Each structure stands twice: as structure tokens, then as C-alpha cells.
């Protein structure tokens, strides 16, 4: 195998791919521009729809309002709540999402609050379990109730000449001690490896099909085989082209993805009902170190080699573009699944998982992006990915040397 011949094949394929400007534009420029624009439009629309209903307020019905005038007045004055007049079919209305919440006050509520003599009266909230707007309305009203309850307790203590200070024995505060780049890594850490892995696959898909099944369909593969270039040189040249496409797509899409995030972060931050964990109200912080990104990219490289070689070998089996497509689309789902593991909250890297091809890169990248560098594991995973990549490349070369595959009927 001569490296120079490989270079010739590679250059020929590269020129071939880049010659058709329109195709280059449709394959690269459109997706890169479209992705951020679409996501922005979509997020803006969704946010607008949600904001509009928030401004209108959630429809809430009060049942037996006259039993609790003080509390009812409070709820009426609450922002984001729109009180609708009583109707007996409130349960049906909640089912139809016309009404979000109904609150039932028992008779004698107000008097009981004042006297505190009997057992506590029961206030019933009728809601639609699991439905977002109903839950938001419920949470808002419950907060009002909470404040009201505290007031009543304070009044009762005062009536007995006791200090309300006894109600608060101590304070508690929460503090994030992880550095900002780790927080950014935890927020986005799962998403980035997922995207890089998927992109390195999709970027390799079309060139791999075009350079093998496409050649068969155009009837040009025989001509190339008749040239002075050897089979192995031919495969490696084609393989390098596919790898180039894969890496380029990944880098370009990542750039556009970063742009999308920067542009939509403002809009997405104002979405209600997001993750309501402690401290998340501070808004999203996107701090990711360049070193981490570089190491992640380095980890994905052998993976891209494996994808390129595997796709070449599979697409070469097909007689036509159509057939290649139907072999490769299921493959995509098979790759997406292990990649998605990095998005799951509870899954962490174990030595056993370090040997599972795509999953290991996905999980270790997540660690790296959140600032942890388990170097032993990183080297192990890199080495195992390289082995998988070499095996895939070997299979691709072997497939090209198999006449019965090249000229299937």
C-alpha cells in the first residue's frame, strides 16, 4: 500500500464532493443556518403561547366563597389567577381544561379561623393531576394558603400574648459549592456528547453511501477498480474522505449549536415549569472550558473512525442507493440509543460500562465536561475505541477485496 496513491484517491474524492456547489450548499450551509433559526422560532412560539395564558391567568373557581371572604379576597388579588363565576359542572370543566382549579370552602370557615375552637376545617382543591397548567394554578393558590395559614397562627399566638418568634427556631440556606464550569458541565454535559456522537455518524452517512453504493449505481466502480490503484489504497482514500466529512460536519454543527444556545438561552430561561430544583431559579449558566471540549473531541475521534469504516463496509454491501439507505437508517437508531444514556440523570460511568463501544465515550465525555478527568478511564476508553475502530477499518478493507460483494447481483 502506497501512501501517495491513497492521497490521490482522497484528493479525487474530495474534489468530486466539493465540485457541485449547490450540493455543498444544500448539505452544509442550509442545515447549519436552519437549525438555529428553527430552534429560535420554535422556542419563541412556545414561550409566547405560554406567556399569553399566564397573562390571562389560570381560570379558578371558588365554591362556597361566602364562607371565607378574607381568603377569597386574597386569592382574587393574586396575580396569574382569574376567578370565574361558580357553575355546578366544575368537575367536567376541569376535565375539558376550561377550568384549571376549583377550591371548596366549608361552611363556617371564617369563624373557625377566628375562634380556633374546633377541629381544623378542610379546604378542598379540585385539579387535573399531571396537567401542567392545573398544577401551576394549584401551586400558586397553595402558596397563598400557606401565607394565610401563617398569619392565622401568628394572630392566635398574639391573642395568647406569645411571641411569634417561637415559630422560627432556625434558618437554613443553600449554597452551591461547585465551580461554575462544573455547573455548566452538569447542565449541558449530557447534551454535548450526545450531539457530537450523532453528528459524527450523520456526517459520515451520505458520503459513505455515495462513495460505495452510489458508485455501483452509477456503474463507475468497475472503472476505478481497473485503474493502477490497489484495493486497499482505494478503501483508505475513500475512508479518509468519509472521515473528513464526518469531522467537518461535527465541527460546523457544533458551532451552529453553540450559536443556537446563546441565542435561545434568554427565551428558554423564561419558560415556566422548568426544572424546579434548588438554586435553578438563578437562570442558566453556560460555562464550559475549552480544554474539556478539546479532550472530548479527542475521545470522539476514534469513534468517528469506527463510524466511517463501518458505514463504508455496510453501504458497499448494497447494490443501490435505496438499499444502502434502508440498511443504514436502522443503524442510526442503534447508535442514538447508547449516546442518549449520557442524558439520563442517574447513570454514571463504571469499569464495566467503559468497554461498551459508544456508551463509554458518551459517559466519559459527560464527566470531562463537568471538570472531572479520570485519566486512567480516559486512556482505557480511548484505547478500546481505537481497537473497535481498527477492527471496523479491517472489515471495510476486507469487504472491498471481496469480489462477490463488489459485484453482487
Amino acid at each position, binding site marked *: 500500500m502506497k501512501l501517495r496513491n491513497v492521497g490521490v484517491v482522497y484528493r479525487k474524492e474530495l474534489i468530486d464532493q466539493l465540485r457541485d456547489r*449547490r*450540493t455543498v450548499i444544500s*448539505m452544509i450551509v*442550509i*442545515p447549519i443556518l436552519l437549525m438555529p433559526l*428553527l*430552534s429560535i422560532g*420554535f422556542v419563541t412560539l412556545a414561550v409566547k*403561547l*405560554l406567556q399569553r395564558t399566564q397573562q390571562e391567568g389560570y381560570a379558578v373557581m371558588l365554591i362556597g366563597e361566602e364562607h371565607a371572604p378574607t381568603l377569597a379576597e386574597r386569592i382574587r388579588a393574586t396575580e396569574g389567577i382569574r376567578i370565574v363565576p361558580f357553575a355546578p359542572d366544575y*368537575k367536567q370543566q376541569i*376535565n*375539558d*381544561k376550561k377550568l384549571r382549579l*376549583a377550591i371548596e370552602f366549608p361552611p363556617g370557615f371564617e369563624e373557625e379561623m377566628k375562634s*380556633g375552637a374546633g*377541629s*381544623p376545617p*378542610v379546604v*378542598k*382543591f*379540585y*385539579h*387535573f*393531576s*399531571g*396537567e401542567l*397548567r392545573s398544577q401551576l394554578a*394549584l401551586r400558586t393558590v397553595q402558596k397563598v*394558603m400557606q401565607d394565610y*395559614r401563617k398569619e392565622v397562627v401568628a394572630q392566635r*399566638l398574639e391573642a395568647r400574648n406569645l411571641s411569634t418568634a*417561637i*415559630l422560627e*427556631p*432556625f434558618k*437554613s440556606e*443553600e*449554597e*452551591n*459549592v*461547585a465551580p461554575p464550569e462544573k*455547573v455548566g458541565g*452538569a*447542565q449541558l454535559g449530557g447534551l454535548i456528547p450526545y450531539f457530537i456522537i450523532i453528528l459524527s455518524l450523520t456526517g459520515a452517512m*451520505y458520503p459513505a453511501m455515495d462513495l460505495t453504493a452510489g458508485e455501483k449505481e452509477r456503474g463507475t466502480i468497475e472503472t476505478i477498480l481497473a485503474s493502477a490503484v490497489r484495493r486497499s489504497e482505494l478503501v483508505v482514500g475513500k475512508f479518509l474522505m468519509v472521515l473528513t466529512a464526518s469531522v467537518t460536519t461535527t465541527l460546523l454543527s457544533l458551532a451552529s449549536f453553540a450559536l443556537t444556545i446563546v441565542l435561545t438561552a434568554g427565551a428558554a430561561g423564561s419558560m415556566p415549569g422548568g426544572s424546579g*430544583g*434548588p*438554586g435553578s431559579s438563578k437562570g442558566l449558566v453556560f460555562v464550559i472550558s475549552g480544554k474539556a471540549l478539546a479532550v472530548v473531541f479527542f475521545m470522539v475521534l476514534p469513534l468517528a473512525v469506527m463510524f466511517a469504516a463501518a458505514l463504508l463496509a455496510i453501504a458497499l454491501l448494497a447494490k443501490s442507493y*435505496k*438499499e444502502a439507505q*434502508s440498511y443504514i437508517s*436502522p443503524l442510526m*437508531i*442503534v447508535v442514538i440509543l447508547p449516546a*442518549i444514556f449520557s442524558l*439520563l*440523570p*442517574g447513570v*454514571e460511568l463504571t469499569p464495566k460500562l467503559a468497554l461498551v463501544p459508544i456508551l463509554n465515550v458518551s459517559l466519559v465525555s459527560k464527566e470531562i465536561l463537568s471538570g472531572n478527568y479520570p485519566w486512567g478511564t480516559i486512556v482505557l476508553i480511548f484505547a478500546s475505541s481505537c481497537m473497535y475502530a481498527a477492527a471496523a477499518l479491517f472489515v471495510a478493507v476486507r469487504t472491498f477485496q471481496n469480489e462477490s460483494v463488489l459485484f453482487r447481483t
Partner: protein
Amino acid sequence: MKLAHAIIVFRKELTDALRDRRNVFAVLIFPVVVFPLLSVGFGEVAESSVKKLRTQKASLMLIGAEHAPGLAEKLRTHEGFEVIPYSPDYARQIGDKKLRVALEIPSDFERQVKGEAGGEALPSLRIYYYSAEPRSEAAARRLEEVLRDYRDMIVEQRVTARGLPAALLHPVEARAQNVASAEKVGGLKLAGMLPYFIILLTLTGAVNVATDLTAGEKERGTLETILSTAVGRSELVLGKFLLVLLSSLVTSALALASFSFTMQFAKSYTQEMTRGHAYSISLTAVAAVFLLVLPLAVFFAGVMLSLALFARSFKEAQGYVGPVILLSILPAAMALMPGVEFSAKLALLPVVNVSLLAREIFTGSFPWGLIGLVFGVNCVYAAAALFVAVRQFHREEVLFRA
């Protein structure tokens, strides 16, 4: 235009598509076997990982445990925490995910609480955690709960110590009651996923066939031969269009059937999705959704045919079709967004209308007026797409682009 000719073209394309057994197999195996297995399998894994998050013991470090022996004892015996010995580098350990959460207790805590200090002297507990890291956040939340209970307990003790009833502290009892039917609650999650998958499969079912029947013919050089036959252009488009439509409908129908079949076997996953409520899809719902999807499939088939015909090669067609898929995925995903609801204005947006309305239908509401409106609107879009496709086939400069 003769319908008989269109049908001949359709039969020819159908035979052509079905001839290659291996290809048919590969096309079918994806929606029928791979797709439901993977989605259910993934759901199971996701569910078990969330469950693990909920039940696993979280490591907790107490800083100054000796200042609050009562609270420390409560935390040591708590089943959700594993208290580990103190070490000064707790902040770094939290960042390295070796430790989930740490609680700092100020000196004199117990004494101040006993002495009922107030105002400035109020003792303050600090929870140290790793923001945005799910396990650390879950541990911090659990710790807050324990603190809240502890606080309530102290307040109650203080009140009873003064000879007052503890009931004084609980003036109201709030009781939340779900009034939505089990079917609606159970269908909430599934009902958002189903339209998304149906729309996506309707689209992907059309894509490969549409590119093969247009750009593929150009690339193979067989388009000229077909055009020279006695069949008219419109009949040709219609025949090709019918095959694309068939493929689109068959793909989504097969996937749905196999999906509901798989759901029967993945009980734990299904129950998680429906929150343990009974949920089934009525025949009326299936029929209504089919009514909505039909014009959408026609629309997709028309759009895909016109786009792919414009391309000179398979590769170029991929470039055009890819963005359209992206363009449809996002509106289809609208149904997955909680809180976004259908309104008459949204009925005019092509894919969004089906996505949101189908979700309503799957949760058991049948707003027939809106269903009729969306059906009508989508028929207009479908007719327009079909019209464009026919026009494209009549234009020589599109058919023989250089």
C-alpha cells in the same frame, strides 16, 4: 387525464418497490421491530435510572455535628442518607461527585434553639451542594425536607411546653383531589408522544420512496424512457404520488400497531407512563386521528415529490429533504411540550395543528368542530402541494436540469 393510466403507473411502481425482497424487509423491520423495542427498552432504562435516583442513599457530610446531636442523630438514622466522617475538603469532594451534600451546623446550635434565640441570633444551617447535578440536587432537596420536619417538631414542642394545644399551629387542612378521569390523567404523557411519532413516521415513510421515484430515476437515467411512453405527465405524477402516499400510511400504521403491541408487554414502563391509571385508545380516537393524518400524508407526499424532483441526483435530493425533515420535527414535537394547548388560531399552522389536536383526541376529547376545521385546512395545504408537484412534472427545465 385518465385514471386508468395513473393506476397502471402506480401498479408498476408498486411492483418495482416490492420486487427487491431484501429492501422491503429492511424498510419494514425498522418501524415494526426496531422502533418499538428501542423506545420501550429505553423507557425502561430511563425509568430505572430515575428510580435509582429516588431510592439510593446519598452521601452526606456533617460539619459540626457535635453542635446539634439531636439533628445529627436524626440524619444518621435516616434511610435516605449515608453520613460519612468529616473532612475539610468537602467542597472539592462535592464537585468531584464523591460527596453529594454537606450540612454545616453552627456552634451553639442546639443551645440557641433551646434558648429560643431570635432575630440576629437566629442560628443558621448551611447546605452545600452541586447545582444542576441531579443526584446532588435530589440529596439537597431531601435534606431540606428533613430540616422542615425538624423545625415543625421544635415549634410544636415550644407550643406544647406553654400548655397550648398543638392544633393551634394547624388552622386549616388543605386536601388536593384529582377530578380528571383516569383515562385523561393516564393519557397525558402517551398522548403527547403518539402524535409526534405518527407525524414523524408519516414523513419518513414518504421520504425514501419519493427520492427514489424522482431523483433516483434521474440518476439511473430512466426518467426519459418513462416520459416517452403514452402516459401523460399528470397521470405519471399521480401514480408516483399514490405509491409515496401508500408507503407513508403503511409505515405509520405498522409502527402504531407494533407500538401498541409492545406496550402490552412492557407493563412497568406503561404504568410509569400512565401513572398507574387505566388508559386505552378508543376506536373513535383512532378514526379521528386517521382523519387528521390523511391530508397531512398527502401534503408530505406532494412536498417530497416536488422537492426531490428538483434535484438531479440522490445526493442532492438528500440535501433538500433533510432540512424539510428538521422543519417538520419541531412542530410535531409541539405536542410534547407541556402547557402548549390547541387554539383556533393554531389550526392554520400545518403540522402543529395535527400534533396538538391529536393529543386532545388521545386524551379523550373530541372537539368535532375543530377536527373538521383542521381537516379542511390540511386538505387545502395538501391540494396545494399536489398541485405544485404536478406543475413541477410539467416543467422541462426541472425534469432535465443541467
